[in-house]
């Protein structure tokens, strides 16, 4: 525990800016992954343990697309859409069979896919780690802001995450689709009574959630090397985020992701060796004090 270093940083503007922006960077990718997870849980009431693997898949698909087209924009889209499509397949043919079954059956199906996807990736893209490399148009010197440093690419990244957050909010709160989805979340039987095709909504939400994970993977590809099994760590982190923010709450995912981001960036100064520990303590604390999470509405 290095409190004075932490204090020192909090008092210096440049450090404050840098660490905060770092928190945003870590947070924004985490948000994209976690929000998909939380959407799926909120609407379908299932925990998609395979979400990390979808992130991995997104990164690898984007890598191939980038190598073919040499355009990062296209690569990102292909990554997101490709994973969305895969998620649709996964939901229609497998997850759908374990709705209503207890969480353990869902865990089982998802774990099977974690194993299968890791192996598939190894067979298709090889066991050696891969790296996309930074697209030329992002190879700019970083921006200096009040003495703090922010790379251009990360500004772009935070921007996209912010747009996604906004778009999601509008989609869920301002559109008919949003109303339907929220209805399905709160009371499936009612929606089907209203003549809405619940199973279609479920499929759509699952695919969308998957696509978000894929998008995150694709966006991370230029700076994070890929290897089979890379989904594991991100999965645990997004669990922490969803729990802290409130399972099923998109705004919660945002808050949780940023919180974890900041814990990481300032923790690396204050308590570098126990960051993970602190994250789990936070998770436990939330579960004990307010199981529905920061943004979750209390059921009891």
């Amino acid at each position, binding site marked *: 525990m290095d409190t004075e270093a932490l204090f020192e940083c909090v008092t210096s503007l440049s450090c404050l800016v840098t660490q905060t922006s770092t928190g945003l960077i870590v947070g924004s990718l985490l948000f994209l992954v976690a929000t998909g997870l939380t959407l799926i849980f909120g609407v379908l009431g299932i925990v998609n343990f395979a979400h990390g693997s979808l992130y991995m898949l997104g990164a690898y698909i984007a890598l191939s697309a980038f190598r073919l087209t040499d355009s990062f924009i296209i690569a990102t889209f292909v990554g997101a859409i490709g994973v969305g499509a895969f998620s649709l397949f996964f939901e229609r043919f497998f997850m759908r069979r374990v709705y209503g*079954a207890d*969480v353990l059956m869902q*865990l089982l199906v998802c774990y*099977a896919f974690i194993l*299968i996807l890791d*192996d598939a990736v190894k*067979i298709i893209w090889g066991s050696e780690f891969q790296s996309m490399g930074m697209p030329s148009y992002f190879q700019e010197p970083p921006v200096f802001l009040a003495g703090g440093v922010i790379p251009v690419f990360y500004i772009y990244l935070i921007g996209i995450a912010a747009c996604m957050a906004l778009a999601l909010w509008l989609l869920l709160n301002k559109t008919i689709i949003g109303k339907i989805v929220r209805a399905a979340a709160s009371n499936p039987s009612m929606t089907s009574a209203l003549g809405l095709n619940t199973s279609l909504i479920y499929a759509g939400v699952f695919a969308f959630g998957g696509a978000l994970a894929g998008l995150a993977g694709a966006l991370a590809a230029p700076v994070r090397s890929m290897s089979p099994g890379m989904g594991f760590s991100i999965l645990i982190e997004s669990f922490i985020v969803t729990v802290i923010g409130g399972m099923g709450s998109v705004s919660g995912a945002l808050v949780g992701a940023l919180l974890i981001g900041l814990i990481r960036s300032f923790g690396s100064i204050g308590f570098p060796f126990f960051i993970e520990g602190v994250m789990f303590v936070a*998770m*436990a604390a939330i579960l004990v004090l307010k199981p529905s999470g920061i943004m979750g509405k209390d059921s009891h």
Partner: protein
Amino acid sequence: MKARSFLQEAMIAAFMLIILVCIPFVSDSSAVIDFGIRLAAFAVFATSLNILIGFGGMVSFGHALYFGAGAYSFGLIMQHLDLPIPVAFLLAVGFCATVAAIVGAICVRLKEIYFAFLTLAFQMLFHSIVVSWTSFTGGDQGLMGGLPRPPFLGLNLVEPSDLYLFSMVVGVVSLLLMRYILQSPFGFTLRMVRDNPDRAKFLGVNVWRIKLLAFVLAGSFGGIGGIIMALLVSGAFPDFTYWTMSGEAVFMVLMGGVNTFIGPVLGAALLLGFNDIITRVTEHHGLALGAIILLFALVFKHGITDFIVQGWHKLTGKKVES
């Protein structure tokens, strides 16, 4: 329902034990011996988890905490204080019980997925403590230098054959104990709490206390599994406390079936068996094991034993009961 008396069950267990102990004399292939030892460890571990999942209706994702706690506490005791193995064994189990009591007191108030995630959080917390406390636990490399295993009662646990004997006895006795506990008044109160906690409350049952007791018992027996494993690998590793280990226990329980006592034992045998065979025959065990797990999830649904039991009752037209 025609319940067997505990005496009868004890007889069955004793009989099984004799058979198991005789196996090495029939085929002295050390593969059998190693498998037996690992099976003992995981059968106890998985069954202990099923006290929570199957009989308590509490799905824990963090049960490996106790597997690891057992392995590490036992290992550290053997390395630092020269105590006879039985004493260290009891101390380690006591340690697990204590940890389980503390964690459980906090966890059992929560329901369903929240309980699951809280147990997970505590386990990962324990894991990151183990990994970062290098000076004491050896960090990521685990307890190095081997465990001293002084002979006792003529057993030298360095010898695989002796360790096999020891594991079989400990394993069978632990299973018998758990069986006894689950048939006790507490065991049925636990089922009542699982089926309908509200009703249990209105019958004057202290639900929280029952759940906590179940949690502590599960933790203690889980620790025994870890101790056997520590003896086998003569050390302890952070992986023992990682969430993947909890996952494996859950899969064993699910594959075997949550509604029968013996299910998890069968599940442990299945998963270990599959793992060993598959890693032998193919390098793509991910694909293979994944496919098998899918089969279990989508076809056998509630585990192999239920599948069998259901089928049997379909034939005989009786109802299933746990």
